[in-house]
């Protein structure tokens, strides 16, 4: 057992070492590294990110490596965080992107601005931030080229989590992973939330249909005046003070639904559409 553990550890260490090639200022022409490489783990990320570290830990942060680069008076930091899995890395990206800006096709998803960029690929979440002597300088092109090169060197998938495809696309603003307490309820531990022009939808997967049924029972008990709806294996609708009109359903081990809609009938009809898209 111990030998197996040691072997796995060596393999993991080797993988980490080879994955560090992307931490290279030279990937951006005219830039060179300044200072040593930095490394953080869950227990000292606070030293670097202060309270912001909580946001990383919530998404299954494993480790971060980063470097600082300079080009004349301009500086640039590159930080690559390894998350627990690709879904968590994508969740980290969705939590950090600007929902008002379009996504770029970098890895699973990315955003490049005039002096900053973020993207996720595989289990990696990458952040690049420049401090330019001229605050108005537009380095979008250079950053686009840099993140493309880094993404090419990172292992892992470039496709978004399958669950996101199940959300209807009409009037969709953004969608991503919520690592805990979906809709502000601890019962819904971890799942995907899609924000629409009106209302929001969610999908949570439980370990089994039985455990999902148990969660549904507890959820229903929390909403006064909940009434049955005919969706999936079971469903209910209700009006709530902070979540507006809601409709939650269970389909196998999945719990999904809509919230923050003006009328219960809207929530029911939208939830029915969502349920039909879940295989």
């Amino acid at each position, binding site marked *: 057992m111990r030998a197996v*553990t040691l072997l*796995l*550890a*060596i393999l*993991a*260490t080797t993988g*980490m070492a080879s994955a560090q090639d992307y931490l290279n200022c030279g990937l951006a022409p005219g830039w060179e590294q300044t200072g040593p490489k930095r490394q953080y*783990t*869950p*227990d*000292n990320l*606070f030293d670097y*990110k*202060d*309270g*912001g570290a*909580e*946001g990383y830990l*919530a998404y299954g942060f*494993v*480790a971060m490596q980063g470097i600082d680069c300079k080009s004349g008076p301009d500086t640039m930091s590159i930080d690559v965080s390894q998350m627990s899995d690709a879904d968590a890395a994508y969740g980290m990206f969705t*939590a*950090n*992107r*600007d*929902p008002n800006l379009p996504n770029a096709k970098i890895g699973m998803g990315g955003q490049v601005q005039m002096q900053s960029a*973020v993207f996720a690929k595989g289990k990696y979440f990458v*952040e690049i931030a420049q*401090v330019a002597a001229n*605050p108005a300088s537009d380095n979008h092109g250079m950053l686009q080229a840099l993140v493309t090169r880094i993404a090419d060197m990172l292992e892992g998938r470039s496709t978004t989590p399958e669950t996101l495809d199940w959300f209807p696309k009409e009037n969709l603003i953004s969608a991503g992973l*919520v*690592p*805990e*307490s*979906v*809709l*502000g*309820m*601890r019962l819904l531990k971890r799942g995907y*939330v899609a924000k629409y022009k009106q209302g929001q939808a969610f999908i949570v997967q439980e370990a089994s249909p039985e455990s999902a049924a148990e969660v549904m029972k507890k959820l229903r*008990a*929390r*909403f*006064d*005046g909940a009434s049955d709806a005919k969706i999936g294996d079971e469903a209910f609708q209700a*009006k*709530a*003070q*902070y*979540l507006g009109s809601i409709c939650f359903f269970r389909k196998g081990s999945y719990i999904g639904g809509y919230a923050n809609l003006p009328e219960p009938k809207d929530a029911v009809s939208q939830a029915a559409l969502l349920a039909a898209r879940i295989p």
Partner: protein
Amino acid sequence: MKSKNTSRRAFLSAGLMLPVVGASSRMGLADTGMGLFRSPEESTGKASTPAKLEYRTLGRTGLKVTTLGFGCMITSDPSVVQRAVDIGINYFDSSRGYQHGNNERMVGAALGSKRKQVVLSTKTDTGTRDSMQKELETSLRELKTDFIDIWYLHGKDNVADVTDEMIEAQQIAKKQGKIRFAGVSTHKPQILLPWMAQKGVFDVALTVYNFSMDSGVDQAIATATKAGIGVVAMKVMAGGFKDIKPSDPLYAKLKTDGAMLAALKWVLDRPNVATTIPGMTDMDQLEENLKAMAEPFSKGDQRVLAAHLDAIKPIYCRMCGQCDGMCQKGLPVADMLRILTYADGYRQFALGRERFQELAAEHRAVRCCDCAECTVECPHGVRVSDRMARAQELFA
């Protein structure tokens, strides 16, 4: 050295003798339309028990804040913030840097028209006059407000980290009416708070503070309070808790016996702390934390915290640095304890081994079992020789 443990225990006990509510505080009742301790999801008008709210004055700002504030950093659903406002919680904290600004955006949307009912704080991570001004404008826009109540310089752990330019930028923002009060957040209160007290230009300090910390922090907080600085406590449930990960055998115990609430109540029992900002992600957490304002720190809480200090003591390194230079073989004890935590605490064996291999060769070659007696005595009770031997067994 051992006397420190004793004094910490005595300090926990002494908490019981302090007044439950500070002289500047008052109790209030807020009829929220919801029960305080009933099911935490929304209600549709059932008979309710009002939440007990405790207020204190935030130093020279004169702001009356609820002793339970709301750290928004990991909150994803605005409904939790909205409910906290409706209950009467009136201190909310964010930062420009949290989730690349998305946290401020969420808080701004959640508060909406109720923004002026609350005290709103945020933080800046930049350091030049221009960049701070730019960040402030962005914060105002995202938080949908004309002014920030408290604008912190974020995460300053050394006096040298706070430059005259930063202070000037805060003062300019104050004169412009874009912020009401200037603050600093720190993880090193012993260093920053006495300096802030002398400096005279800061109104509020946001500092780590919890039951597991050295009593020197209490003195630093008292000094700041005496100088009129309002003290806001963060990481109130950290130290002995947040550093314990779900993979750790201690985690379940720490999560199940009211220790989190006891730790929060311990901080609220210190009259020099005006408010606290525990992070809250759901209604359940909010409901649980509200109890801290309604219930005094009790003998039961004291027992829980004392037991947890004992539970974490043999393994939990607080990185106080007091073991520096104690090892006769020159081992970097704190570094090795941290490395061991990667494997034992976080199940990151590969990472632990990698860090161990980065130690100097002469340190990697040391075997603690070769020493007749260990010269390292941890002031907090970590069994250093046992832990070092385990690190060598695992990684060497």
